[in-house]
């Protein structure tokens, strides 16, 4: 029995969903609009919505005052680098836990997840000291390693749940069909695991891209990614809303576009493989 859905109910729910969606999206929309205003219009009270002189001067200013391409390259390097380093470590780990679990596998998984509950600021001081001692402050490699460590529990968990979905009988069938370990991994396991690995990669690139605490605190100039780039526009001499908005738009645009095109995989990734 399906629940009866009357047209009125449908309209109501649709309106509600749109309202909620717009509410969630509003900060980004407002930032987008503000980025085309002059500083004066940006702080006008009452706020101006659409009817102002649209200008690109904020974007030009931002470009002139700072090095957007460099921050962009840093963001890409850090997000992609930390994700792939994480995948490299997590694939064998999740593999072992999914296919040859031990008595304590569940405990290890829960312990890994529990590290996510540790307040990040708690390890800030030792980490900074360590980085200084190693001479890697403000370097891409430091951020790649730190962000990898921070997201590793999530990567392992996601891959573990995906691998668990691969039915063992299919692997046994391959063995019966004459496949050795290499053929089994190459022709059967990998193709079946790839969609899961792909959504894990996608989600973790986004997580690493948006990570602000460590990226802002551990960088100054050389390795500063887009998060630090945005932060640099909230200057001590006062906030320049329009320029800050323009910088923000530049920072979030790449990941927004990527997210838009990979919505389907992302939803699957966020539900940790709970729905098919």
């Amino acid at each position, binding site marked *: 029995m399906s629940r009866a859905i009357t047209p009125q109910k449908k309209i109501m729910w649709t309106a509600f969903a749109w309202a909620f969606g717009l509410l969630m999206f509003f900060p980004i929309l407002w930032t987008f609009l503000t980025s085309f205003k002059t500083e004066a219009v940006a702080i006008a009270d009452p706020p101006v919505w659409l009817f102002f002189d649209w200008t690109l001067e904020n974007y030009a200013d931002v470009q002139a005052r700072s090095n957007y391409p460099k921050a962009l390259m840093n963001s890409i390097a850090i997000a992609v680098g930390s994700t792939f380093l994480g995948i490299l470590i997590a694939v064998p780990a999740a593999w072992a836990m999914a296919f040859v679990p031990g008595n304590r596998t569940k405990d290890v998984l829960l312990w890994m997840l529990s590290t996510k509950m540790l307040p990040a600021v708690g390890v800030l001081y030792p980490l900074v000291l360590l980085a200084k001692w190693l001479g890697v402050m403000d370097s891409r490699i430091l951020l790649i390693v730190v962000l990898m460590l921070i997201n590793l529990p999530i990567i392992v968990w996601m891959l573990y749940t995906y691998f668990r979905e691969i*039915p063992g*009988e*299919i692997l*046994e*069938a*391959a*063995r*019966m*069909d*004459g*496949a*050795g370990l290499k*053929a089994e991994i190459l*022709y*059967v396991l990998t*193709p*079946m695991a790839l969609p899961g690995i792909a959504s894990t990669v996608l989600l973790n690139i986004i997580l690493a891209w948006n990570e602000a605490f460590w990226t802002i605190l551990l960088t100054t100039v050389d390795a500063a990614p887009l998060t630090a780039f945005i932060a640099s526009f909230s200057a001590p001499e006062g906030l320049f809303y329009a320029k800050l908005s323009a910088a923000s738009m530049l920072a979030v645009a790449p990941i927004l576009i990527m997210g838009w095109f990979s919505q389907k995989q992302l939803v699957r990734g966020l539900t940790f493989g709970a729905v098919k």
Partner: protein
Amino acid sequence: MGNISLNQVTKSFGDVQVIPPLDLEINEGEFVVFVGPSGCGKSTLLRLIAGLEDTTSGAISIDGNDATSLAPAKRGLAMVFQSYALYPHMSVRKNIAFPMKMAGIDETVQNAKIDAAAKALNLTDYLDRKPGQLSGGQRQRVAIGRAIVREPAAFLFDEPLSNLDAALRVGMRLEIMELHEKLQTTMIYVTHDQVEAMTMADKIVVLQAGVIEQVGSPLELYHAPRNKFVAGFIGSPKMNLIEGPEAAKYDATTIGIRPEHLTVSNTEGMWKGIVGVAEHLGSDTFIHVHETGLMDMMTVRITGDIAAKHGDTIYLTPVADQMHRFDADGLRIA
């Protein structure tokens, strides 16, 4: 080829021994069915033969060669799983081709074999589809096709029809039997369904708790069950097992009489009872009889349709030479 012999094979999971020492001979070309209640170790036994589980001790030989520690891939057997276990990312053609690809067989030979198998299994129109686009019956045919092209020493079937609906199950059962007639290859078939066992097998192996209770042809098991367990397990509806003074009259601890070996009368007979439920199948009538004073409920099977309704008094008489007698250990008294 396809002789398989198990010599004192055991299997333990941790401290739990699921298969105590077991001997079994499977001859070339035989259709052998492992049957038993769930958890009796029949699937484990099949997986030991397949090599998917390691034997704890004992030896398995295939065609005279020791295969005890051989990898599944090296045993030359093919298996059909209950869940079909098709490769979801490959087309039907590639699924069937997979074992040949692993064996490094020439592609033109592969294609010829695939086409032949597809034709035999009515899969020709589906060769380019993915398993997800097929029905349950078609998927099971693909799994069988994948097994056939290997030309294995023996086919292993692990409850292959359990996921199919009743009508399809009967059809697939016939297809598998026809396949056996045609190929004359050894087949080992695991099921919990004793009807499948009776109809398909040359030889039935009845298992309980990892122990072989009896090995024999379907009719041997039907006519001369070695013990009470086999008597109760083989045959549908189940044999009536009567204990107590009535059994003592026949110098036995338990007497068994199959529902089809009881005659009924409204006026006289050896045992008196009250009709509980009568199931009218048209060809047969199953009458469940209460208050006989012998057992909770006796079942009678009468050929054809007879009038019997709830609450009727009914008299039952066993066919004398069809009675089975068992001693205190549950073993058959000859």
